[in-house]
């Protein structure tokens, strides 16, 4: 290996060490949500003992103890501050995290393996909030999330509409002429189909776009690139070759911010869930109430809940403090078999 190559490897490893440390801090913050006091001498002793036994090669016990004493000190320091933890689906750099940063950049985002883990985490109190994608202008509704929303007792605390900019990125220093394969989520690959065709690139499916970026940074496969967010390029130290490569002009994803408690802050948008009896005109009677109250609907979706029965999602403009909203909710209660007010919140549109 030449010096330049060794240094490149060290750079990759350093950024990986930092990501792992960040992950450890996230876990410490999650642990705090489940324990009563920050100080736990027995646990600290246990950690130091374990790493001392694991020290190998050039890493001696004295050195690891020094490093770990610092790490534990830092994580206790973080635990003392009041952090808001938000779960999102995917790896760091996922579009859910991009949306979250646009909503509140001070919140700590924690990656989750799937949408159900986000819902679970909020319910268990590991997360203060969660962010989930509900629909995309190209891909339609996110079925899995709708399914979870119908069966949850969580509330909507906010919404973000995010333009999705897909970027092609590589390991730093990669010659664009050497790119042969491109990894990303199936949705992202479909949305960049023409771009990939034009440049004779092979599309390889990966479980998640940010996950593909992480894999590229860690496994360094040859002749490869990934399609992911700009944030993913920053996090994994990748070089963007081309921004905004999707074949479509308008690629927007709408996210909901969920919480175990109902939102008390002011809002101008509301979400409800309801089901109606399996009879002619029942849905119409609900919509008629909105029409009579002059309430503008922004989304209506349905999901099958058992044979022949449907649950409807409905978003509308207004506040739960508005007279006409209160009155229409009372009337809707009478014509539906179930009604759940999911929240009144603000929606942020990112440019």
């Amino acid at each position, binding site marked *: 290996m030449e010096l330049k190559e060794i240094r490149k490897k060290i750079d990759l490893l350093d950024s990986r060490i930092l990501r792992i440390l960040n992950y450890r801090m996230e876990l410490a913050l999650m642990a705090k949500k489940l324990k009563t006091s920050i100080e736990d001498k027995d646990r600290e002793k246990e950690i130091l003992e374990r790493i001392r036994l694991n020290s190998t090669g050039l890493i001696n016990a004295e050195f690891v103890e020094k490093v770990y004493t610092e790490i534990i000190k830092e994580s206790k320091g973080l635990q003392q501050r009041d952090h808001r933890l938000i779960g999102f689906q995917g790896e760091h750099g996922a579009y859910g995290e991009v949306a979250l940063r646009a909503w509140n950049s001070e919140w700590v985002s924690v990656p989750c393996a799937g949408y159900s883990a986000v819902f679970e985490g909020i319910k268990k109190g590991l997360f203060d909030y969660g962010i989930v994608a509900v629909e995309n202008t190209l891909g339609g509704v996110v079925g899995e999330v709708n399914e979870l929303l119908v069966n949850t007792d969580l509330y909507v605390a906010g919404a973000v509409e995010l333009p999705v900019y897909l970027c092609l990125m590589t390991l730093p220093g990669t010659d*664009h*002429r050497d790119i042969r394969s491109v990894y990303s989520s199936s949705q992202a690959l479909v949305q960049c189909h023409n*771009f990939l065709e*034009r*440049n*004779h690139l092979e599309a390889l499916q990966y479980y998640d776009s940010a996950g593909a970026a992480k894999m590229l940074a860690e496994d360094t496969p040859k002749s490869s690139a990934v399609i992911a967010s700009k944030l993913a390029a920053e996090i994994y130290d990748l070089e*963007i*070759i*081309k*921004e905004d*490569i999707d074949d479509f002009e308008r690629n927007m994803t709408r996210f909901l911010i969920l919480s175990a408690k109902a939102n008390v802050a002011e809002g101008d948008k509301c979400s409800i869930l309801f089901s109606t009896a399996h009879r002619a005109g029942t849905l119409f009677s609900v919509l008629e109430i909105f029409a009579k109250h002059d309430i503008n609907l922004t989304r209506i979706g349905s999901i099958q809940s058992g044979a022949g029965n449907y649950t409807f999602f409905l978003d509308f403009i207004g506040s739960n403090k508005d007279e006409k909203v209160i009155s229409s909710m009372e009337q809707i209660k009478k014509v539906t078999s179930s009604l759940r007010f999911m929240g009144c919140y603000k929606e942020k549109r990112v440019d």
Partner: protein
Amino acid sequence: MKNLKLTTIKVKNQARTLVKVKDITIGEGFTVIAGPCSIESEEQAIETAIRVKEAGADILRGGAFKPRTSPYAFQGLGIKGLQILEKAGKESGLPVVTEVLDPRDVSWVCEYVDILQVGTRNMQNFSLLKEVGKAGKPVLLKRGMFSTLSEWLSCAEYVLAEGNPNVILCERGIRTFESYTRNTLDLAIVPSIKEVSHLPVIVDPSHGTGRLSLVERMCLASIAAGADGVMVEVHRNPAEALCDGDQSLSPPMFMSMMKKVRKLQECMVEINALDRESSK
């Protein structure tokens, strides 16, 4: 010219090729392409783009892959340069043109720019010509520095034969025994092309003369010769340019040149009207 099927005029009063790029039509009026020889930094490119736009340029130029005589000279910023050029184009609202050197880069360069330029040194690079012919973007084909008119049109023929009708020819000077100027700008080629081909032709007085003091005069001469446009190098600070500083105009010089260009254009409308009258 026997082997020229697509580039030459076949019938009397045959329609001339118009090349449309965004809101600009090359072949109609007089199109001015301006910008730095090379993209050096985002700041440099955007500032230059905005200033040439203010002065009335129609299209922004900027090199990312540079064909340099010496392998040790600045070779351009590559993909990074293309990213900057694209951004400068968006910020100024100008379409952009850049040179492509390598057939492997053609599809990539198309992702960032509106017009592909084939440089003088690559005029007869036939694999590159075939590739840009397939690319579906307009091609600015510079005249090879040792090429005759028919050799030049023959190269344009390669692009057209691939199904791409949008070729703009660019005279940039040829090698002669004259050494005062970098090249000898062959302005007689402009009306010559108009006689035999329907393709639009523009002139590059920056490379054609290699001398700052001659650029404006030759630019005006191009209008009189009947060219469809010019391509000139403009750098926000020519003394600091990494490439072709000696022949780059500063933004104020470009602005003063543009005033004269537009004025002469107006005169040419009247002169061309006289032409039409006498041919009746």
